[in-house]
């Protein structure tokens, strides 16, 4: 039986938009949350494919498809900007802590984690 894909696509979009909100927060916890939301979006699409009953797009599905594409593009851009930010900061920190290599590249990041032993 054919069903309109609009609902499935909308469910996926809601999850991608949730991921976008997490990516805007960009804390380690929020990034974990965004990973989960993207996973649920993928699962929503996978389920739609698995049932094999999505019919060729009606107007509602076409609109949802376009919205979902835009949301995925937005998530990609936000992931890229956050990732570039931290990659750049990592390079800066590396240069601050380790200087530069003879080739002018920032030195590898020194491990600055500390161990605390009690007892």
């Amino acid at each position, binding site marked *: 039986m054919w069903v309109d894909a609009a609902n499935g696509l909308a469910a996926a979009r809601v999850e991608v938009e949730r991921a976008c909100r997490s990516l805007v927060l960009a804390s380690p916890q929020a990034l974990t949350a965004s990973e989960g939301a993207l996973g649920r979006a993928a699962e929503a*699409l996978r389920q739609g494919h698995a049932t094999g009953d999505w019919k060729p797009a009606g107007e509602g599905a076409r609109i949802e498809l376009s919205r979902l594409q835009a949301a995925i593009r937005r998530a990609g851009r936000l992931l890229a900007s956050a990732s570039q930010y931290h990659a750049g900061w990592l390079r800066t920190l590396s240069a601050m802590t380790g200087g530069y290599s003879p080739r002018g590249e920032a030195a590898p990041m020194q491990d600055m984690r500390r161990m605390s032993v009690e007892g």
Partner: protein
Amino acid sequence: MAGITSSLYVQAGAINAFEQAIAVTSANVANANSPGYASQTQTLLAMPEDIAQGLTGGVIAGEVVSSQNRYAQQAVSNQQTALGGATQDVNSLTSLQSLFNVTGTSGISTALSTLYQSFSAWGQTPDDQTARQAVLTAAGNLATAFNQTASGLASAATTAQTQLQQAVGQVNALLGQLQQLNTEAMADGANDAGVDAQITTVVQNLSQYVPVTSTQQPNGSYTVLLAGQIPLAMGNQQFPLSFEMYQPATAANTDAPPLAQVMASDGTDITSDITSGQLGALLDFRNTVLPQYVGDGNHAGSLNTMAQQFADTVNGILTSGNITDASADGTVPAVPGVPLFTYDTTNNTDAAASLSVSSTITPSQLAAIAPGPPEVSNGIPLALAQLENPESAADEIDGESYTAAFGDMATQAGNLLNQATEEQQVAQSALTQAQNLLQQQSGVDLNQQAATLVEYQRSYEANAEMLTVLNQLMQDTINILEPGT
């Protein structure tokens, strides 16, 4: 005795150091609500102690370290620039799109359709004066629609020019503030956190207009560069921008709409360096987007090309026909058709604005007879009606009908606006993200950051993998729902 004296020195130094620390803390409290303010930390330096060498030990006040992360500030500035550009794009393109309405009851699309219908009706009753008058009226309406669209585009160009002038003025006003603040910062010996915060705010405001990078100098002033290389502010100096409209030396048509250019304080043309921010968006709209429609010194623009080609095609068909036949005995020659449309032929960027129906043409002067052979009494109106669904390249523009070509212009304007709207949403989110990252990083020590960065890296990789999977599933979904696209 030496012990007591040295002890007194140590205590005096400590008191001095802690007084400075208290001053810094007071500044933090006083500026807690100042936009752009970063809390300061007073470092205390331990002094060597060697009584024999006269080194008394103790602590002195070290350099004030700003917890504000310059790197994070720059990231916020970059996103301010992106948002400034995207917002301006949305404003400019919204006005552009309204000129290319293909669904309403007015505009070029509707006028074209009505003119084709009038040609068709004239073809059915070629001698009917009412049908002929309807052709003249519809042609006049189409010319008016072209005039109005051209006028709307000219108005958009004027608005963009005014906005460019204002944006350059705003940039220069901010540079004036920066010069004053830099002078104060230098006078305060690089330790005035309040001035520092004000400079940060000015730089953020500047970022909305142009892409800037800022670097704090040891004397407390900020060096601000446009596009990483053009000085805008250095120490107590400012380097204001200027703006003018010009016709490139390579322009073949010197009467064409001029282009906008922005110059650095030394008069160098830096237009191509301003690719983002509100100023970048305005320059792109004025110098690239609008000329696609209205032309520039080297091309007519799609709207003018369309107006000119349509007028030439209609005129060509009409003048190939006859108003009346030659007499059977050949003593009275046939009266050839006359052109319907006129336009300014001296300036190819003025075709749409100047398009009009010939002031001398009357309904009876519309040539209906295609001389052939064979002669067809309504051949000309039928040929004109055929323009709606052309069958020969001569009746097309860029390989399609005039209706489709105008639809393409409208689609292009609509797509540009859609992209700009999406870009604006992304830029707004990315700015909030950069502000959040600035907030998170402020005041976090390097050890903690190093550990967190490793955590971030893992999260980014996981998110990127998930997004790759999602993109693939999305492509599969498109294939299922819209096969063949």
